[in-house]
C-alpha cells in the first residue's frame, strides 16, 4: 500500500486532528442560533440525549472501524466499509464516505475563505461600518459587504471582469489546504491541528472574557446587557420539548457538529496502530468539540449580539448561520470597544476552525486516490486538488442566492451523512457483530466502553438515527426535490446544476472504487472482511 507508512506523530495528534475536523463554524454560529430558537436552556435536554445516544456511540464505532480497516491496510471509506459490510454492497455504500468530504469541501473552502477575508479586513481597518449609524444602517452595510465577498447577488460576479478580492483569497485558502495535504498526515494535518486547536481555545477564551465583562454598555437600554443575552440563550422554554422539530434540531446539531458519518474519522483512525486507544481518544475528541460548542459558542455569539443589537435584531439572525456570522456579528464588533481587534481574532479563530475541518475533508479523498489507484501522496494530492478546484469553482461561479451551495449542503452535507452514519452503525453492530466490534474497540483502550453503551450502539442509536432521518426527510425533502424537478423556475437552475455535479462525482468515485477493488484483490488484501486482520500496515 502506497500510504502504508503514514502514521500520526503522537497520541494527542490524532485527537486534535479529529477534534479539529469536528470543531468548525457550526460550533460558534449554528449551535447558538439553534439553541436560542429551540427552547434555550431546555434545548440542552435533547442535545445531550443526542450526544449520549447518537454522537458518542457512532463516534466510537467509527474510530474502531477505522483502526480495524487500517490493520488490513485500508484507509478509505469504500475499502473499510467493504470489510465491515463483507463485500461489494458495503464497499459501494462506503463511496458516500468519500463523496461527502469531497463535495462538502467544494463549498466549505469558500466559506473558509470568507473568514480569511473578514480577518484580513479587520486587520486593515474593518468592513466599512460607520460609527454612529443606527443598527439598521450598520446591518445594511454589513450585508452589502457580505454580498460583495460572497457574490451572492449574481452568478459569476466573483470570477468575471476585474480580479475580485474574493477570488484571490479563495485561491490562497485553496492553496494552503493543498500544501498541508501534500505535506502529509503528520507534517501537514497533525502539525496544523496541534497549533490551531490551542490557538482557537485561547482566542475563544479571550473573546469570552471580553463578552462576559461587557455589562450594559448603554444604560439607556437595560435590555441590552450580558445578563439579558445569557437569558435569551439559556432561559428554558419547556414547551419546545413537545415539538419534534426541537429534537430534530438537537440531533442534527450533534450529528453534524461531531463529524460522525462524514468518512473522516474512518480515515484518520485508520492510521492508528493496533494498540492505540480509540475509546478515550474518541471521547476526548468529542469532549473537545462540546467544549468549543457549549462553553464558548454557547456563551459568546448570541450574548454579544443581544448586548449590542438587542433581542429583536438577534432573533432575526439566529435562523441562519451565515446571517449571524457574517451580517450580524460584524455590527457587534463595530459597536464593541476595541472591536477591530476582537473582530480580527474572532474571524482568525473561525478561519482556523474552518481549515482544520477542510483539511479533514481533503485527506480522506487523497487517501482514497492513493490506495485505489496506487499513487503516491504528491500525484494523489494533485488529482484531488484538480477535481476539487473544478467543484469549488462551480460553487464560486454559480453564487447567486447561494442556491448551488445550499443544494450541495442539503443533499451531501446533510442527507447523505445520515445514510453513511446509519450504514456504519448497522455494519458495526449487526453485520460485523457487536461483540467483535467492542472487542476491537477495547484493544489498547485506556477506558472501556460502559456496557450500557453496547446496548445503545446496537439498538438505540440505529433506531434514534432512523427516526431523526425520517423526520428530517419529511420536513425538508419535498421542497428540495421540487427545486430539482421544476424546469420552469430559473431560480432553481443552479440547484439542478448542483445535482449534475453530485452525479458526476458519484460516477467518478464508483469507477475508482471498482478499479481499487481489482487492485486490492490482486494484492491479496482482505477487502471483503473474510479473514482476521493480519496487520498489513507497517509499524505494528
Amino acid at each position, binding site marked *: 500500500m502506497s500510504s502504508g507508512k503514514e502514521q500520526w506523530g503522537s497520541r494527542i495528534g490524532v485527537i486534535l486532528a479529529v477534534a479539529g475536523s469536528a470543531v468548525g463554524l457550526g460550533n460558534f454560529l449554528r449551535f447558538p442560533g439553534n439553541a436560542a430558537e429551540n427552547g434555550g436552556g431546555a434545548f440542552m435536554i435533547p442535545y445531550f440525549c443526542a450526544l449520549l445516544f447518537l454522537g458518542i456511540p457512532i463516534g466510537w464505532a467509527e474510530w474502531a472501524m477505522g483502526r480495524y480497516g487500517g490493520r488490513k491496510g485500508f484507509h478509505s471509506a469504500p475499502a473499510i466499509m467493504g470489510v465491515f459490510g463483507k463485500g461489494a454492497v458495503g464497499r459501494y455504500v462506503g463511496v458516500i464516505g468519500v463523496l461527502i468530504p469531497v463535495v462538502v469541501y467544494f463549498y466549505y473552502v469558500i466559506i473558509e475563505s470568507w473568514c480569511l477575508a473578514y480577518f484580513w479586513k479587520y486587520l486593515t481597518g474593518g468592513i466599512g461600518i460607520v460609527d454612529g449609524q443606527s443598527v439598521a444602517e450598520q446591518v445594511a452595510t454589513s450585508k452589502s459587504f457580505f454580498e460583495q465577498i460572497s457574490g451572492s447577488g449574481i452568478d459569476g460576479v466573483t470570477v468575471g471582469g476585474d480580479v475580485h478580492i474574493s477570488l484571490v483569497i479563495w485561491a490562497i485558502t485553496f492553496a494552503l489546504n493543498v500544501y498541508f495535504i501534500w505535506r502529509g498526515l503528520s507534517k501537514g494535518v497533525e502539525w496544523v491541528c496541534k497549533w490551531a486547536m490551542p490557538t482557537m481555545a485561547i482566542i475563544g477564551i479571550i473573546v469570552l472574557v471580553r463578552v462576559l465583562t461587557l455589562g450594559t454598555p448603554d444604560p439607556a437600554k437595560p435590555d441590552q446587557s450580558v445578563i439579558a443575552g445569557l437569558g435569551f440563550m439559556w432561559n428554558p*422554554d419547556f414547551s419546545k420539548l413537545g415539538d419534534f422539530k426541537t429534537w430534530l434540531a438537537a440531533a442534527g446539531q450533534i450529528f453534524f457538529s461531531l463529524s460522525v458519518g462524514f468518512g473522516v474519522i474512518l480515515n484518520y483512525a485508520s492510521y492508528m496502530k493496533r494498540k492505540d486507544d480509540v475509546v478515550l481518544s474518541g471521547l476526548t475528541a468529542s469532549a473537545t468539540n462540546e467544549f468549543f460548542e457549549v462553553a464558548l459558542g454557547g456563551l459568546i455569539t448570541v450574548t454579544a449580539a443581544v448586548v449590542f443589537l438587542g*433581542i429583536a435584531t438577534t432573533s432575526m439572525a439566529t435562523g441562519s448561520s451565515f446571517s449571524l456570522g457574517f451580517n450580524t456579528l460584524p455590527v457587534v464588533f463595530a459597536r464593541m470597544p476595541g472591536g477591530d481587534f476582537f473582530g480580527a481574532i474572532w474571524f482568525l479563530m473561525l478561519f482556523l476552525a474552518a481549515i482544520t475541518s477542510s483539511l479533514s475533508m481533503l485527506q480522506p479523498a487523497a487517501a482514497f486516490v492513493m490506495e485505489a489507484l496506487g499513487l503516491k501522496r504528491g500525484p494523489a494530492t494533485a488529482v484531488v486538488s484538480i477535481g476539487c478546484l473544478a467543484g469549488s469553482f462551480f460553487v464560486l461561479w454559480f453564487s447567486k442566492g447561494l442556491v448551488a451551495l445550499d443544494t450541495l449542503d442539503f443533499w451531501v452535507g446533510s442527507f447523505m451523512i445520515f445514510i453513511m452514519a446509519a450504514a456504519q452503525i448497522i455494519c458495526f453492530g449487526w453485520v460485523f457483530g457487536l461483540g467483535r466490534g467492542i472487542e476491537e474497540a477495547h484493544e489498547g483502550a485506556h477506558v472501556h466502553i460502559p456496557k450500557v453503551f453496547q446496548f445503545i450502539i446496537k439498538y438505540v442509536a440505529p433506531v434514534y438515527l432512523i427516526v431523526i432521518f425520517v423526520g428530517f426527510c419529511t420536513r425538508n425533502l419535498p421542497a428540495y426535490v421540487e427545486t430539482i424537478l421544476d424546469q420552469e423556475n430559473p431560480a432553481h437552475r443552479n440547484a439542478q446544476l448542483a445535482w449534475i455535479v453530485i452525479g458526476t462525482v458519484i460516477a467518478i468515485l464508483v469507477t475508482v472504487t471498482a478499479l481499487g477493488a481489482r487492485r486490492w484483490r490482486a494484492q491479496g488484501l482482505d477487502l471483503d472482511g473474510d479473514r482476521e486482520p493480519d496487520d498489513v500496515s507497517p509499524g505494528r
Partner: protein
Amino acid sequence: MENQAMTLQPLGWVFLIVSVGFVTGLVVWCYRRVLTLPPETSERAD
C-alpha cells in the same frame, strides 16, 4: 421567550452552569487522562 429574556432566570442559571460545567469537566478529565498516560514506547515518524 422575549419577556423572559430581560434577565437570566434561576432555571436558566441551572441549565447554563450544568451544561457548561459538564462539557468543561468532561474535557478536563479527558485531557488529564490522555496527558498522564505513560509515554508511547515507539517513536513515530511520517
